[in-house]
């Protein structure tokens, strides 16, 4: 069972801070990490390898420093790493990214399964998996939470839907996108990490010429969508803080709600508000 795992290096968006004056992301001190879902993807690959043998090849498109996620993956047990790095790849949308990844995977001699994360935490599109699958003309199963069985012809997985889940069988080769939290990814081991740093480590870097693409078909130049504006979301509401004793603030709240259009949504609010008005009139 030969498996290709797609990994992306991403900024850790969980502790993103914004510059108060410019509204920009503060990137200093923002560490680069392996995209969280991709760890789950690799963990499944490692489990399959443990049972059926074969090799795991990691593929990542990114700047030269993205080699770090490949080393980390090898520390976790992956066999080979392939970095796709070229100035020409920069600024790619998902169309251009999946084209670049697809062209590289075509060059890898054989694979039975491609496993990737469901979604990357920076671009957040969840589009790469299905687009790479279509490029290679292989079936896809997305939102996978469990891999039940793998044989040399078929894989059976569990796929999550909003209101339940499905068990889906697919012919091989196939592409799976793994939902974060699907399993507990192992930690890299030191020996593996050190081996990945050695000079003869099985890490390769390919550029545009190596995968046989024209620079106008990749990166920003090859993209079909373009970011034309970005901004930090602002919120318009003007919060009014209610003051007084607990009974008073709750009373004020009910009156505010009762006088708003929201009253039509809640009988209890409308009724209580009316009751308050009546009681007031009666002078109690």
């Amino acid at each position, binding site marked *: 069972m030969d498996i290709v795992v797609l990994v992306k290096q991403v900024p850790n968006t969980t502790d993103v801070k914004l510059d108060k004056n410019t509204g920009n992301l503060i990137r200093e001190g923002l560490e680069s990490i392996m995209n969280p879902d991709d760890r789950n993807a690799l963990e499944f690959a490692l489990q399959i390898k443990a049972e059926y043998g074969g090799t795991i090849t990691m593929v990542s498109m990114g700047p030269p420093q993205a080699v770090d996620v490949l080393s980390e993956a090898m520390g976790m047990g992956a066999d080979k790493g392939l970095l796709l790095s070229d100035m020409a790849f920069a600024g790619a949308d998902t169309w251009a990214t999946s084209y670049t990844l697809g062209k590289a995977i075509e060059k890898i001699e054989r694979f039975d399964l491609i496993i990737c994360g469901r979604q990357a*935490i920076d671009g957040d599109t969840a589009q790469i998996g299905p687009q790479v699958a279509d490029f290679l003309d292989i079936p896809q199963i997305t939102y996978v939470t469990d891999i039940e069985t793998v044989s040399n012809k078929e894989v059976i997985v569990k796929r999550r839907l909003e209101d339940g889940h499905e068990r889906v069988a697919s012919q091989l080769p196939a592409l799976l996108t793994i939902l974060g939290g699907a399993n507990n990814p192992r930690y890299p081991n030191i020996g593996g990490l050190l081996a990945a740093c050695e000079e003869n480590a099985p890490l390769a870097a390919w550029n545009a010429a190596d995968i046989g693409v024209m620079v106008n078909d990749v990166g920003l130049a090859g993209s079909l969508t*373009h970011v034309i504006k970005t901004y930090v979301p602002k919120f318009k509401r003007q919060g009014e803080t209610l003051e007084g004793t607990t009974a008073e603030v709750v009373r004020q*709240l009910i009156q505010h709600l009762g006088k708003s259009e929201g009253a039509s949504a809640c009988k209890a609010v409308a009724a209580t508000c009316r009751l308050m008005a009546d009681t007031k009139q009666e002078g109690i």
Partner: protein
Amino acid sequence: MTVWVETDLCDGCRRCLKACPYGAIDMKAKKAVVLDHCTSCGACIQVCKNEAMLTDVVPREIPDFTDRQGVWVFAEQRKGQLTRVSLELLGKARSLGEELGQQTAALLVGNGVSGLGETLISHGADKVFLMEHALLDVYRSEPYTIAMETVIRDHRPNILLVGATHIGRDLAPRLAHRLGVGLTADCTELTIDPGEKILLQTRPAFGGNVMATIANRYSRPQMATVRPGVMKAEEFPGHKGELVNIEISLTSEMVRTEVLDSIKEEKRAVELSSAKVIIAGGRGVGNAQGFEVLRELAAVMDGEVAGTRVAVEEGWISSDHQVGQTGVTVRPEIYIACGISGAIQHRAGMMNSRYVVAINNDPRAPIFQVADWGIVGDVTEIVPELIEQLKQGRENVIGL
């Protein structure tokens, strides 16, 4: 490619600085400089009024797309039931169509689903393209992609909107790739650019910390997936439309996956997205008993209970009740946030609520900035008092 500043042209207006999603621009001596961690995403190039931001990428010519007409919606159905987001998108498609002077169409794919055509028409579709086949019974990526590809190639729409459900986000990227068109993910806002007449698609990225507006200039249809609960479904009573049958040729060899079984679990998420009143709890609710009190308030207000990711992780409420970026998006009339700090990922799911009430003992909690009315206090005191007072109205006036 590389991005650099032509210093002579730069007037130091800082537009590029604000636009860079990666914080890769700095001002030195009132001129912009591009820093090393620039990813060449191109966002800054678009905003510079002086054409001082340069790149070695040759600008491409924008093809003539005037023959591409129609604003289309993928009408997702599961077991003969239309998803709510499909109807929400039809409402949006109709207003976009009016702005462009183009018709609205719905794409109905399945087997034995023609009865849904009426609902789509009354929600704004001028045309319903019906694609039925035994192999289209249960959703699978491959046959659905083929069906959609067929009708799009033949009828050449301008815009195609797909609900960002687990099915929509499986189908749309494969279809976009098949057609060779761009796709914007998970949009929360769609408008037409008044000059260029293209669709401007706004979406959260970087975990909701940044909003990005994306244009799709070089290919048609302009495709976007849109979050459920963001747009509003509208009914157009008496609206007339046409049902058009489309032949789809499919054989079982074209389909390499099979759905073995499909297990339904509690379907609460859908109720949340249509609830009029939501009582949401966060870490500040304290414990599972605290959530029982919220349930009591929900019962009095005829509402539903929801929670933050922390509340879900604590096990106080199940994960299908999570509101936010990785949970559901809701738009109730009244949203009462109890012991919730108001993290951006949470706000992403509730900011379209009509009225927001915040109850939190920390006056600096960001939730107060997005609330209409705030109460600084302990949830364990405020909520029971609210229940008490509302009960009086309920008992004395409605007699419940």
